């Protein structure tokens, strides 16, 4: 690049206010946080589609009953400056791609976090998405999908066996504003496998109403061989036309941001205490959980294997809980919720007695609250 061109780029960056902190709109772009798990195997079946298997905020979607299966891990690898990446490893190939098959990884963003883009107005801004990737050489797709207005932009990118940074400028879109609320407005989608329903058209190289056939034109198949791997990290989306260096955040900052969408209390010892509550009857107890930071919305409660959990009482110490824990819409919200345990084994409680929700001699126990998009 000539000196003049370099200076012009610097001026452009300054004009776009891209200098300074908090540029990256993407969560967990460096794949630092993995509250759910650091590894998930056997993914690809319909039973595990549209889920968040490992690194926080990164969703996997596979539709159309693909035969392909993969393992997803948070892996200690990355280009200079990155300790972690998301690794996808094909474990079962899919040699025959049906028309409706699709496999994508994505991040979903709230409309209220996207207002600076001014989408749908005469002041609409360009965006730049950048990411680092390496893997089995293959062409994949990127799609920006406006969920509020059913509009999209698509392109392809070709990964090689060496880490390299990819950048994609997203043109400004003066049509279709993002809602200013906590609901899903924008997907950042990486297409890794697609049937002809999504590949038979022509790429949407400028924002346009969504046409399914235009969504993944030119995309190769991650499931073409069990040799296929993809490593990706350093994902950034910022307002402007030039990709600036990746904005590194501390682990603590990133974890706090992710906890708006998911928080998991994991056992650190065999009888770890998750919460303190009170007995309502001889076998029912309620526990109040407070959320800091507040969640995006009232959460779903998951606890994994029920037998990993227990409750305490004065007479018997830890006792099993026989029925799945539940939350209560009447007392739920983004800041707190009540968890009810309705079946203490042996009815050992006395109403009003203090009781703890604990790991029942099992370090695999957890209580998780999910407010993801």
């Amino acid at each position, binding site marked *: 690049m000539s000196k003049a061109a370099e200076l012009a780029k610097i001026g452009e960056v300054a004009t776009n206010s891209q200098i300074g902190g908090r540029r990256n709109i993407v969560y967990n772009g460096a794949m630092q946080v993995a509250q759910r798990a650091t590894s998930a195997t056997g993914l690809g079946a319909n039973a595990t589609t549209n889920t968040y298997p490992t690194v926080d905020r990164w969703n996997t979607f596979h539709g159309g009953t693909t035969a392909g299966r993969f393992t997803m891990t948070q892996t200690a690898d990355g280009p200079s400056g990155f300790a972690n990446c998301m690794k996808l490893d094909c474990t079962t190939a899919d040699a025959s791609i049906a028309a409706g098959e699709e496999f994508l990884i994505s991040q979903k963003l709230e409309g209220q976090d996207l207002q600076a883009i001014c989408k749908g107005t005469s002041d609409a801004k360009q965006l730049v998405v950048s990411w680092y990737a390496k893997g089995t050489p293959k062409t994949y797709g990127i799609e920006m999908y406006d969920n509020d207005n059913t509009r999209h932009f698509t392109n392809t990118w070709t990964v090689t066996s060496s880490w390299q940074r990819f950048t994609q400028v997203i043109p400004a879109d003066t049509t279709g504003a993002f809602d200013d609320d906590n609901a899903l407005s924008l997907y950042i989608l990486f297409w890794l496998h697609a049937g002809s329903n999504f590949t038979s058209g022509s790429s949407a190289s400028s924002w346009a109403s969504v046409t399914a056939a235009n969504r993944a034109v030119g995309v190769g198949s991650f499931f073409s061989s069990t040799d296929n791997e993809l490593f990706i990290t350093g994902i950034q989306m910022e307002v402007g036309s030039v990709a600036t260096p990746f904005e590194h955040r501390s682990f603590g900052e990133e974890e706090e941001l992710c906890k708006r969408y998911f928080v998991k209390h994991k056992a650190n010892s065999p009888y770890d205490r998750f919460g303190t509550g009170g007995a309502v009857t001889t076998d029912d107890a309620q526990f109040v959980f407070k959320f800091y930071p507040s969640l995006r919305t009232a959460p779903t409660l*998951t606890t994994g294997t029920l037998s990993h959990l227990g409750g305490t009482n004065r007479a018997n110490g830890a006792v099993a809980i026989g029925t799945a824990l539940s939350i209560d*819409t009447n007392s739920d919200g983004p800041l707190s919720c*009540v968890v009810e345990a309705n079946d203490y084994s042996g009815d050992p409680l006395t109403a009003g007695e203090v009781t703890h929700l604990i790991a029942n001699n099992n370090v695999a126990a957890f209580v998780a609250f999910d407010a993801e998009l």
Partner: protein
Amino acid sequence: MNIKSTKYVTSSITNENGSILVTFNDDTYASVPLVVGNRHYDAILEWEKIDGNTIEDAD
């Protein structure tokens, strides 16, 4: 959302439906609030529109 079955759970505070116990196809389960905007509740509402799918009454 890979739903296998759903069942209302009664709130001990109001004695009305307080949440839905959903079992997914991989046999994991979750307790879902009756709140639009919660992705699981939204998915259950879509699931319920399909013929034959109903949310079981609470015990």
